[in-house]
């Protein structure tokens, strides 16, 4: 019997395939129930007009009780958006990926939330502690305990 995690992911995938992704979001790859890739762009007026980013979702077996690990892919063909809550290694400081995660959220809901996070951006800049964080950041952003209040995020500490 398939695990709760993969059964729920299969349902989410079926929904995406049946109803399509929200505007500006495309499923690139969902070959397994561990890692999915999406492309994401902000439609309409925004600082990121014409930019397309790549999102990576990593699920563990306790999804949806535990949140997915979500980050922007930084590679030869894609970069992390310049945003006060996005580190240059692609890690995202967003409360819904941390302490405000709830199983009522889904993969496409997370995509939409991140899309609106980009759309509402006022100034393209990196988090203040970007360099320090990126130097010591763990591979999995879930291992970082972000601190979500305040205008700019800051890292409380890494659990590594």
């Amino acid at each position: 019997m398939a695990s709760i995690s993969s059964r729920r992911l299969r349902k989410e995938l079926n929904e995406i395939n049946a109803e399509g992704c929200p505007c500006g979001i495309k499923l690139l790859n969902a070959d397994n129930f561990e890692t999915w890739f999406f492309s994401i762009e902000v439609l309409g007026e925004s600082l990121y007009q014409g930019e397309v980013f790549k999102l990576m979702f990593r699920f563990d077996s306790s999804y949806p009780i535990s949140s997915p690990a979500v980050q922007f892919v930084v590679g030869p063909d894609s970069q992390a958006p310049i945003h006060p809550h996005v580190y240059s290694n692609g890690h995202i400081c967003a409360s819904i990926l941390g302490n405000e995660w709830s199983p009522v959220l889904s993969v496409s809901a997370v995509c939409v939330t991140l899309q609106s996070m980009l759309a509402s951006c006022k100034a393209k800049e990196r988090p203040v502690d970007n360099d320090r964080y990126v130097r010591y950041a763990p591979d999995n952003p879930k291992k970082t305990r972000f601190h979500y209040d305040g205008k700019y995020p800051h890292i409380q500490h890494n659990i590594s």
Partner: protein
Amino acid sequence: MAQVAQRNIPTIDDLKVKLCYICREEERYDAPEVPPKAWTHPCNCTLVAHEACLLHWIQTSQQNRSRAANALKCPQCGTAYELESKNPLLLRLMDAANRGLSTMGKVVTIASLTVVVVSLGTGMYIISTAYGAYALKEFLGEEMFNLLLTEDPSNWPWHSFINLPLIPLALIISRLPLDIGVTPIVPVLLAWPTSSPVHSRDRIILELWKSSADVLKRSSYPMLPSWPPPPLFLGLFIYPVVRGAYKVLLTKFSRWVLNTQPEQANAPVQRVVLALNDDGPFRIRIGANLEDPAADRPGRVQAGQADAQPGDAADNAEAEGLPDDAAVAAENTIRVSGTSLGRLIGGALIIPRISSFMGSLLFRMSKHSWVLRRLLAIRPPLPSGLVPPALFPMYDEKAWRAMSTAKQIGVAGVMGLSVMWRGTYAWAECDPVWSASSVSILAAILLTFTRRWRNSLGLGIFTVAKDCLHLLHLWLTKRELESRRVKNRSFEGVDIRELDLINPAPAS
């Protein structure tokens, strides 16, 4: 309306399709799961879930401190979930006890940390104070010590509990390279001159002090300082002046001995760095580090050799560039080999002992020299049980009260000045042990207020001697570096045919 009110409000069991918001599994009313799964609708919105899923979610979230706040409410409408459980009084009591113990544990942790910090601090304070008293005894001599402080801390004036622990601190600070003019003995000199003798029952102020014909002379407070100089005067004026002068002289002398150039304008910054390793209350700095590189000096080549020594590298890096002079190399060599924090602190803390030792040495020498006796102002010890008056011999409470306020102020002012200028009677009348040290200070120079004086002089002399020794060490090291040659050997044992000689060896 009544009908509506009476109509059953639907429950979870009335739904056609139930969709668990956690696992996203559906269950149709006409196709129940086998075995049946419990469903729940815990809030005010439309979200429903398997009870097992929801409990799993709540339990998991509650274990995570940052998520615990959101564990018991609906993510959509925010309604608080209500849990029903077997939660008997005993469990609640135990939970409460557990929380209480956790809180107490935190309190205990904080308390024990505090205790550790406080006891460390107190230990440091007690040790510092004890050391301060020891230093004072060494420096002032038994007699003064018993007069001003005594071995029994309950006799000590309140300010001694501030002054005493500062003594080791001041001694150590004085040896740091910071040029702030804190001199090792100044705290002692400043702290005690104005303190009156400790009162204890078995001590009586003898009438001698009031009746002696001497008193009239003394009470006129001549504007000339007494000899030996009173501690305040010594500490505030003579000592810094002498120290400065001594430093200049020593620097010049060192330059002359080691044949180095005066340092250049930007040297001071660097000196601080280099002098960190320095010892002695009086800094000896030859200051040749920034020598003009163009200067053609015979010492150069040898200095280069010295650079190659392991351990020199760090010093050279500090000096921003290679030293051009053997004197510098010599200095580096000495410093590299013999400095440490322990030496700095130990050297500072032994000052009182040294000063006391030098003082007693001076005292012994004074038996053979009238001049020295005068200089040290040696007096016979006070008769036992005798305590000199605190401030001035004519001190008389009745007379004081009889004075007008203005006169009181005037008299107090004169007394204050006189303390500044001459010291209190306690200081003036005691064997100025400190004077030997002051001569030390006079040499370094002014530390020996008779015993104090003597010890001061002694310390000064010691300092001068030590500086001379250091200089000699430098000079000898420099000479050693300059005179280095690699020993030349003949080709004995080498096959001559392998050598390309001017006059080839005849083939044999």
